[in-house]
């Protein structure tokens, strides 16, 4: 019966790993993209070559996850100690006379964090663009007034800029969380969930196409949906509020 599919989903060891990894993805990915995006939005506003750097950081958004997966697999490429290293990270380690690391194999933290880094590389530009628009929307007089009152740059950031940007940060955080709960392509291409890097969406795909177990796959899909429902409610609330302001 149907219940067994859910019992499987909540007791199977690989499924539990997938839940843990999705939680790690949500936590690390969301924090890093929003944080880095915020920092970049603020510091890039102070230099003249802003548009060039923005283009560079935004560029991965145009690349497919498959492409990004291959690009980063090459960055993480591992060869046994003594052989010439062709991945740039291990090349760097060998320069420092440190023995090479199997970035995508070292479980459970290094490899999962290395996969998350790829997604951060792609999505930081998105956060940066949105936060930068919000930052440039802050009236200049406000910041000037704070400066005249003798506030330091850090104080201005913490007391004026950040509170004013908080609504945007909140929206971005929900958007990033929704997005990352469904993460699939990067894991599929880079490790296919091996070495304890499984995630919910990849597991669902495997149940569906490798094991032809549509019952289990459906149960996993439903769980994914339930996890996203709170975010959906937040979105609808926000939409209704915006509707009132129109």
């Amino acid at each position, binding site marked *: 019966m149907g219940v067994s599919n859910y019992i499987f989903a909540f007791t199977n060891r690989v499924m539990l790993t997938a839940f843990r990894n999705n939680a790690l993805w949500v936590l690390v990915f969301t924090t890093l993209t929003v944080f880095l995006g915020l920092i970049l939005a603020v510091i890039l506003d102070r230099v003249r070559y802003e548009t060039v750097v923005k283009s560079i950081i935004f560029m991965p958004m145009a*690349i*497919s996850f498959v*492409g990004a997966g291959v690009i980063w*697999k*090459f960055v993480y490429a591992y060869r046994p100690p003594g052989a010439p290293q*062709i991945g740039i990270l291990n090349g760097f380690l060998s320069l420092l006379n440190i023995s090479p690391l199997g970035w995508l194999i070292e479980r459970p933290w290094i490899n999962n964090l290395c996969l998350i880094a790829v997604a951060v590389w792609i999505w930081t530009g998105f956060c940066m663009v949105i936060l930068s628009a919000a930052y440039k929307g802050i009236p200049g007089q406000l910041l000037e007034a704070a400066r005249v009152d003798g506030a330091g740059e850090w104080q201005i950031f913490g007391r004026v800029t950040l509170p004013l940007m908080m609504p945007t940060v909140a929206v971005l955080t929900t958007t990033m969380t929704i997005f990352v709960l469904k993460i699939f392509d990067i894991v599929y291409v880079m490790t296919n969930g091996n070495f304890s890097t499984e995630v919910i969406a990849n597991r669902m795909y495997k149940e569906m196409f490798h094991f032809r177990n549509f019952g289990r*796959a459906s149960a996993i899909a439903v769980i994914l*949906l339930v996890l996203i429902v709170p975010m959906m409610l937040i*979105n609808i609330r926000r939409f209704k509020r915006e509707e009132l302001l129109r």
Partner: protein
Amino acid sequence: MERLVRVLSRIPLHAVIIVIALIWVFPTLGVLVTSFRPAPDVAATGWWTALRVPFEFTQYTLRNYESVINQGGIGRAFLNSLIITIPATILPIMIAALAAYAFAWMRFPGRRFLFIMLVALLVIPLQTTMIPILRLFNRLGLAGTFPGIWLAHTGYGLPLTIYLLYNFIGALPSELFDSATIDGASTLQIFFRLVLPLSITAIASVTIFQFLWVWNDLLVALVYLGGTPDVAPITVQVSSLVGSYGQDWEVLTAAVFVSMLLPLSIFFGLQRYFVRGILAGSIKG
């Protein structure tokens, strides 16, 4: 002197920015350089060694591109990607423009309810829809065909495209519509003569979005097209090369670079519209 102090005090700022920019560039640069190096070199030394003498052109070759496009099936896959992407972009944009106009300016029962459903749909993971739709496609003979994937991408693309266009079209001044109605224009006339020309930039940015989304998609193609090479788009082909050529980096990097050509030219050519589209508020399911 004061000027010098100011310049010096800004050095850490510049250093941080440049280091971040380098971290962002290096992975892609590595792939670009490797795709032009002969196989023995790629296996023997890191790609960065080629940068010691970057203008020594004898160390580069086009062989990798030749072999992925012919033997690697990337040429065929590129064509398939175009066949998939162009209708799967035009179709939803056409429907979305009409729908956005209706949601924004026409009064009909259930309008608000339908629109709230649409906002909810923005975040529904498409994984939840795969099994029922695939079963339907199997019954209708649409699985593994181009029309099937056009329909799938149209369905998945509509909520976001309607939402983005609604935000724009809904913000047009209402006097415009009032005076057009007084002049006796019909609803369709208002749409084609007024709304469409006025929202052309918004439509352009949404089109770019949908195009990149479909071009870069892997999951939808894997599920509804399966892995057969005669219909597989470039993302599916590249990911299957990862399986079969795992360590032949000169092959993989060339394949990836071909897959990035179109998205990157669109990105650098039309970055302005791309950014505008993102700022219009994007939450995609």
